[in-house]
């Protein structure tokens, strides 16, 4: 109790709260710009925390982290461009909702879902950190590969109008992920002798090119409308704070399920928000009584995606606090920040520095509350983006995409890739290929290949994928998931045939 009070007194001091507020604002703004990720915002914050106390520094970084997960929602809902990889699924329903004249509701749903997702994950973090962490680190490459196979079955929920083209898009994504040095031996593959392909296609450049550039190009398709000064969203903009809070709370199962998915995926080293939001969305769609509404602006889709990605913030801290193993790039930076202050991160962290750990738990909760208040107070300003004419938004956001892509690695060749991937993304979109499975393929490809090869390097026995219990559970889940998807497709085909019969 003393340790908790000591940690609380430091986190709740006026100076720390003021710095956390600045951190949350910085996180929201950074993540709202396509190309700038939460990781980049935290890297830029790290040097500023060197002069602070350890808990103060960590609290500021956690506020950037929590703010960043929410910030990605803003461009996802208003522009249809995921501000961060963890808000890809948010575009599926928040953007159509905004385009249907309800941008305020879309943002409000996302903000509340993010808030509850973070609070639920913090609660789980406090209760279940040690046992979950022990489970997560016992997983070997067999289990990881089977997990990725399961995650790939999400494609069935993201295929849009055609299952065939959805699968082709997912395989194109996997093929893109194989370009460049192979992940085990570093052997160059498919680079055609070009320097710009030698390092592979950076995931964020692909994400920005596929989603942002193709979406921006789609905005200028109607030449007459854009010349008239058409805005992004027409209609009245209303944030509807309290009614939306009730709307989110009226979906307790979706909220808790999505948050648990976020916590579980966040706790797995190497996975993270970019996978969690897609898995949570997929699970919500499968469990829904009206899955056909998903992708058209249903609140359930927004709640699932945002609760899922925000809950990974708490989940990622589980192996970090319990075992000293960072679950993601952001957690590695948090760990580095602690090490700079001479604190060794590992199983003894909670015993030697209990005040710090309790302070981190509290900082997570305070950050999410701060983010909520900030968003409620300032969302009207963000919503003004929707009132800006397209002829202003499109060129300016294109420049932001270019700057974001360059700033990732300081490589001009990434800009050529961005333009090339942008053209590919627009062409695929115009030909009615769904883009989400492609991005899923790019995310999961390297993890799948690495773990498949690592498993067979450790023990060249394929049956281990079936004889190791956790691996088998994931594979059975994958088979069930495919079966469920096929059943859904057959059912909707039957319904559409029955619908046509009477005519």
């Amino acid at each position: 109790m003393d340790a908790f009070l000591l940690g609380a007194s430091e986190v709740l001091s006026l100076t720390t709260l003021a710095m956390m507020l600045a951190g949350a604002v910085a996180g929201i703004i950074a993540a709202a710009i396509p190309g700038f990720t939460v990781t980049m915002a935290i890297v830029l914050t790290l040097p500023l925390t060197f002069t602070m106390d350890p808990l103060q520094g960590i609290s500021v970084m956690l506020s950037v982290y929590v703010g960043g997960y929410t910030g990605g929602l803003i461009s996802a809902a208003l522009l249809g461009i995921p501000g961060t990889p963890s808000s890809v699924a948010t575009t599926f329903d928040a953007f159509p909702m905004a385009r249907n004249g309800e941008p305020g509701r879309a943002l409000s749903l996302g903000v509340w879902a993010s808030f509850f997702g973070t609070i639920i994950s913090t609660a789980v973090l406090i209760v279940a950190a040690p046992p979950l962490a022990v489970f997560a680190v016992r997983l070997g490459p067999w289990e990881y590969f089977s997990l990725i196979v399961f995650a790939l079955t999400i494609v069935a929920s993201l295929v849009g109008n055609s299952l065939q083209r959805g699968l082709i898009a997912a395989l194109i994504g996997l093929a893109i992920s194989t370009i460049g040095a192979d992940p085990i031996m570093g052997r160059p593959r498919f680079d055609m002798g070009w320097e710009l392909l030698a390092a592979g296609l950076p995931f964020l450049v692909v994400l920005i090119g596929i989603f942002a550039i193709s979406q921006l190009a789609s905005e200028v398709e109607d030449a007459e409308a854009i010349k008239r000064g058409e805005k992004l969203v027409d209609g009245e903009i209303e944030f509807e704070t309290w009614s939306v809070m009730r709307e989110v709370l009226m979906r307790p199962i979706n909220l808790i399920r999505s948050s648990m998915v976020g916590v579980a995926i966040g706790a797995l080293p190497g996975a993270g928000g970019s996978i969690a939001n897609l898995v949570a969305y997929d699970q919500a769609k499968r469990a829904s009584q009206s899955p056909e509404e998903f992708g058209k602006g249903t609140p359930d889709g927004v709640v699932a995606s945002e609760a899922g990605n925000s809950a990974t913030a708490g989940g990622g801290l589980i192996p970090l606090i319990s075992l000293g193993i960072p679950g993601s790039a952001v957690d590695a930076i948090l760990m580095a920040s602690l090490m700079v202050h001479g604190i060794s991160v590992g199983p003894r962290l909670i015993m030697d520095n209990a005040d710090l750990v309790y302070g981190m738990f509290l900082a997570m909760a305070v950050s999410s509350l701060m983010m909520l208040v900030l968003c409620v107070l300032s969302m009207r300003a963000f919503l003004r983006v929707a009132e800006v004419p397209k002829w202003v938004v499109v060129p300016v956001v294109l420049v932001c995409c270019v700057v974001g892509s360059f700033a990732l690695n300081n490589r001009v060749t990434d800009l050529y890739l961005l333009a090339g991937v942008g053209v590919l993304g627009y062409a695929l979109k115009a030909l009615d290929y769904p883009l989400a499975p492609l991005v899923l393929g790019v995310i999961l490809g390297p993890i799948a290949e690495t773990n498949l090869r690592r498993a067979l390097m450790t023990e060249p026995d394929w049956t281990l994928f079936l004889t190791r219990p956790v691996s088998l559970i994931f594979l059975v889940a994958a088979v069930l998931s495919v079966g469920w998807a096929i059943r859904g497709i057959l059912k909707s085909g039957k319904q559409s045939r029955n619908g046509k019969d009477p005519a």
Partner: protein
Amino acid sequence: MSQPGHQTQAQESGEIARLLSYVGLLALSAGLFLEAWAIPTSRFEALGAGAFPMLVHACLSLLLVASIAGSLRRIPIDAYGRFAGAAAAWAREKRLVLVLFACLAVYVGAMPLIGYPVATLLFLIVLQITLAPKTRAALAVALVLSLIFSFGLNWLFAEVFNVFLPRGR
């Protein structure tokens, strides 16, 4: 009036465009499969660097062959003759998209030569004026925004974040 089940001309042209995309992708995928085949396996592991790409391209090629067969069945013979005209009409309708991609290509191509601030200033002025309604207010807004997002953003990144955007030769 179209009969039920009868494809419109736009749908037929779309299906032909998709068929062309399947053929292009199949050629690329088959080529990459062969390249992956040629990658030597390592003696340190059961699977080499080429195994996973071969698996991916084999699945992709099979799916593309099935898609090509399906498209060929769906497209009526006379639709091919109308495709060139439909494609030209599509390009005319989406002319601003083509302008946007042309501007983007010139912008990223010129950036290493003339530097971020000048390239961005020119890109924003040209694209905004192309897209904007032709009024003085729009022109003034375009000029101010171009200056902010070119020289202003360059200053912000260099002075605040210590990230230096391309300076040109």
